């Protein structure tokens, strides 16, 4: 099957691509429609900025990034991947915000002998039993960020928490992560309806959390649910009484909205993350400054990961001197993680997941009064995800 596919793809390339165009094609699958389209926009902007920063070149080759919309649906994401692989004959398929879209598209890209790079999603199977030599991540594994948060809670002497997360795999990963490290008592736990018909009114759960007497609330609500949650947390009068500890809930995408609506309850709330806009290294300073200049807002972590994706690919293409048929060479180059990353130096584990630092961040006002996050402390140094052992690769 691989052979037929490759033969077909080669033929298609001859039919479609103008002769002699020396370029490296990167497919980028993300969400451009639906309310989650705002995340995809941030990633797209970061990719475009990265391409601009490298002068549109990787070695001697021109860079051609083809964006596809997954519509927040695994099936659509797979169709988009099929198109990139079969019709556009890309060498790298990157992007992927959502775990389910990544899992659905995985086979299409890998079976066709392409590199698959996740610029966000990090579900446990991909790090464990489904790990693959041609898969790389520029983000993290789902469990890691909440594990760091559990550690923070221990350090701060929080004795009990109430947990809320959406009822889907990433939500469960996040909860499993915090439970893995948090040593105190879990007073209660709510998994709320997710998916297209997601629950956005958390009145019942917040009332329970308040009544439970927990010392803190841990939540994971990505996208628009995050905004809804933080507002209701404030309206329910929990602010200042039961502190909020979150992962992937408050980010540079939601903060401008909170600031516009003057929801100052979010100031001072804490979260863990592998990166922050104020992280002190050359590449990050360049990235954040240029991003703010060009788009007039802070980049989100989604943007940071996407920016890194382009530099990772560049390192691979340049290592083989632009010979895109040299898969082994490119793989070996990527495995070294030998490129300037916005998170600073990191290494790849055996499962091609980053082994990296995790930081505690806090929401603050910057010098211009814009709400952003800053690093408070380093929680983990060179942390590896807990599923690496399940991966059969060395």
């Amino acid at each position, binding site marked *: 099957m691989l052979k037929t596919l490759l033969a077909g793809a080669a033929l298609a390339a001859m039919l479609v691509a103008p002769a002699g165009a020396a370029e490296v094609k990167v497919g980028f699958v993300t969400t451009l429609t*639906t309310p989650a*389209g705002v995340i995809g926009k941030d990633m797209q902007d970061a990719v475009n900025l990265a391409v601009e920063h490298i002068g549109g070149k990787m070695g001697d080759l021109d860079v051609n990034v083809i964006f596809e919309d997954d519509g927040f649906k695994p099936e659509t994401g797979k169709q988009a991947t099929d198109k990139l692989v079969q019709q556009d004959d890309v060498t790298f398929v990157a992007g992927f915000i959502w775990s389910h879209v990544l899992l659905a598209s995985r086979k299409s890209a890998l079976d066709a002998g392409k590199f698959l790079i996740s610029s966000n999603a990090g579900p446990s199977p991909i790090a464990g039993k489904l790990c693959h030599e041609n898969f790389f991540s520029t983000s993290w594994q789902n469990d890691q960020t909440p594990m760091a948060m559990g550690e923070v809670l221990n350090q701060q002497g929080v004795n009990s928490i109430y947990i809320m997360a959406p*009822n889907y795999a990433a939500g469960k990963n996040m909860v499993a992560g915090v439970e893995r490290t948090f040593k105190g008592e879990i007073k209660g736990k709510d*998994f*709320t309806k997710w998916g297209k018909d997601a629950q956005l009114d958390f009145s019942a759960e917040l009332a329970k959390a308040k009544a439970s007497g927990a010392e803190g609330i841990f939540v994971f609500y990505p996208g628009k649910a995050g*905004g*809804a949650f933080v*507002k209701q947390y404030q309206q329910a009068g929990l602010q200042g009484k039961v502190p909020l500890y979150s992962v992937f809930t408050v980010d540079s995408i939601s903060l401008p909205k909170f600031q516009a609506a003057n929801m100052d309850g979010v100031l001072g709330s804490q979260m863990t993350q592998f990166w922050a806009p104020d992280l002190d290294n050359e590449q990050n300073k360049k990235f954040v400054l240029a991003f703010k200049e060009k788009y007039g807002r802070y980049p989100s972590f989604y943007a940071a990961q996407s920016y890194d994706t382009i530099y990772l690919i560049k390192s691979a293409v340049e290592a083989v001197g632009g010979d895109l048929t040299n898969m082994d060479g490119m793989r070996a180059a990527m495995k070294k993680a030998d490129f300037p990353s916005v998170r600073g130096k990191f290494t790849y584990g055996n499962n091609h997941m980053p082994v990296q630092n995790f930081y505690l961040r806090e929401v603050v006002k910057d010098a211009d009064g814009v709400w952003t996050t800053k690093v408070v402390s380093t929680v983990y140094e060179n942390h590896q995800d807990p599923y690496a052992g399940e991966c059969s690769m060395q």
Partner: protein
Amino acid sequence: MDLTLLVIQCLNGLQLGILLFLLASGLTLTFGIMDLVNLAHASLYMVGAFICASLTFATGSFVWGVVLALPLTGLVGYALERGVIRHLYTRNHLDHVLATFGLILIFDTLAHLIWGAEGIAVPLPGFLDGQVELAAGIVFPTFRLVIIVGGLLVAGGLYGLVNHTRLGMLIRAGASNRTMVSALGIDIQTLFALVFALGAVLAGLAGMLIAPITEASIGMGNEIIITAFVVIIVGGIGSMRGAFLAAMLIGLIDTLGRSYIDDLFKAVMSAAAAETAAPAVSAMLIYILMAVVLTFRPQGLFPPKVR
């Protein structure tokens, strides 16, 4: 069981029920009178929320935002009726479902183009943003209380409108026998357009009231419209009283289900199994209710008397 918590959860359920009623009342009106199945009612809910959000920022006040957005949403509804909807009255329900499904796609994409994908968080004025202590220990967000009281007033107003005005008489007459009303020389075209616009205003109001709690976002209505349909089906299509009671019932069932089902399940199964089963069952609860109601009463709980 914690009694204070139970009271708060009942209030939360009531508040959800009120929102559902605002949406369902428009649906049941248009269904009862024009025999129209309108999925795009969800879009009017979204349009109301977005217009209100824009106006809130323009005027600096949520209250002004609502006051100005209500007639504008009505206008959008009126234009929609004139442009598309009225051509559907002579068609069957299948055509209604498809055409209004198409309208949802159109409205969602237009909203994306006009307001962007990110959605708008709507700020509340200080006097609505806090909490009130209703009784010892029962602290409830002010704005949610406003929704309950405001919604009950609207429901009362609708009751008065339908039962004690000429327009209401026509509405009731139209619901039970449409041909008769037009035979009596009533300008049925205008009546239909007015009723549709009224439904749009009610849906828009629901959207405006939810916007400060969640936010105005694309496709926000597609999530709740299905529930609103469940409400009017359970209540009996065309019945205002049925819509009100079913909305309250479903609001309470949904909220109390989310609050207590996992505890209930933990009593009969392992904690891990309960954790998995509870969210699924509480999400299914209203559909189970609907299936049960229709099994025993195929016309819903309160079918209008004459059809």
